[in-house]
């Protein structure tokens, strides 16, 4: 279950960053809201599909989703935009535009590694 939530967070950010690249879309919708909607639906899909849950609900898949998402986002955005765009997506999603990007980046890094550790320690042996 935790691994499914982790995968949802990782892949939702990757998809949101891809959507963000489209200026027309970015000017018209709140990509931050899209991010949280995607997290919800990707989680539901993984949890309620038994076959998918078997594949995605493992620690190794969580590691894959972490690496694939971070690499994908890095290649799409480059280092300078990486420090701003994912944080701005979260900031728009929670509608708190006065929170500095750095704080959101720290929180995202903490969630990434704490989440991966939690998936590792709660895995079925």
């Amino acid at each position: 279950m935790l691994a499914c939530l982790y995968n949802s967070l990782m892949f939702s950010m990757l998809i949101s960053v891809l959507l963000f690249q489209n200026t027309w879309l970015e000017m018209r919708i709140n990509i931050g809201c899209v991010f949280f909607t995607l997290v919800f639906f990707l989680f539901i899909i993984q949890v309620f599909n038994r076959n998918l849950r078997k594949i995605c609900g493992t620690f190794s898949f969580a590691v894959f989703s972490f690496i694939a998402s971070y690499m994908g986002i890095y290649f799409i955005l480059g280092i300078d935009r990486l420090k701003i765009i994912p944080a701005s997506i979260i900031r728009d999603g929670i509608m708190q535009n006065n929170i500095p990007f750095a704080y959101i980046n720290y929180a995202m890094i903490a969630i990434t590694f704490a989440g991966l550790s939690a998936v590792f320690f709660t895995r079925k042996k």
Partner: protein
Amino acid sequence: MKKLLLFAALVFVLVSTAYAEELSLIVNKEKGEIIIPAEVNGKYFVTPTKHALSYYKGGNGPKSIMRALVSEIDYYNALAELGAIPGDNIKAEDMKAKSSAEGKSTEGDKLSAFVTWEGSNGEIPLDDVVVSEVANGGKVRPIDLRFSGNFEFAKRSRPGCFICLDSCSAGISTNAAWPTGALNNREVSFHGNSKVLPPDGTRVNVIVRLVK
């Protein structure tokens, strides 16, 4: 668990209300100027946008280089108070133009805009805080800011637009240098100038003057 949830709710309420500070416009009739309190949105240092200044509670508030901390309705009224005449010549259908050749430029009294902040070296012209990237090596056009009006649309739809960087049917003041259709045809794109503007979240004042 209950205590934790209560604490989380309290933190959320505090964070939400921390932004509730409403300021007011300063109108100086003698100088023919309006001072608008705003904040820099660092997201648009690295992302294109057509909005230079929008009300933070408006539909385009988070999509602008600077977030105004006062309402665009107050801005319209302040310009009217200074005696500026709106153009009101751009309609929603004009925004569907496929290129600037097909498009229409905004009319209305000419305005000039500047930005100041603590530590800024005087008043910085809007042209310097916005980077215009013209396609195919085209010539950068200086911003020709006009009092476009669009009051009925602003009141009805509340997009929050103070200053649009092309001619627009939604902004109170928009840029006549780029007709409608220019952005649809990707002839130009705009973003904030991180080399000139202060960092994300910095309080700035946008000064708009009526050019006589």
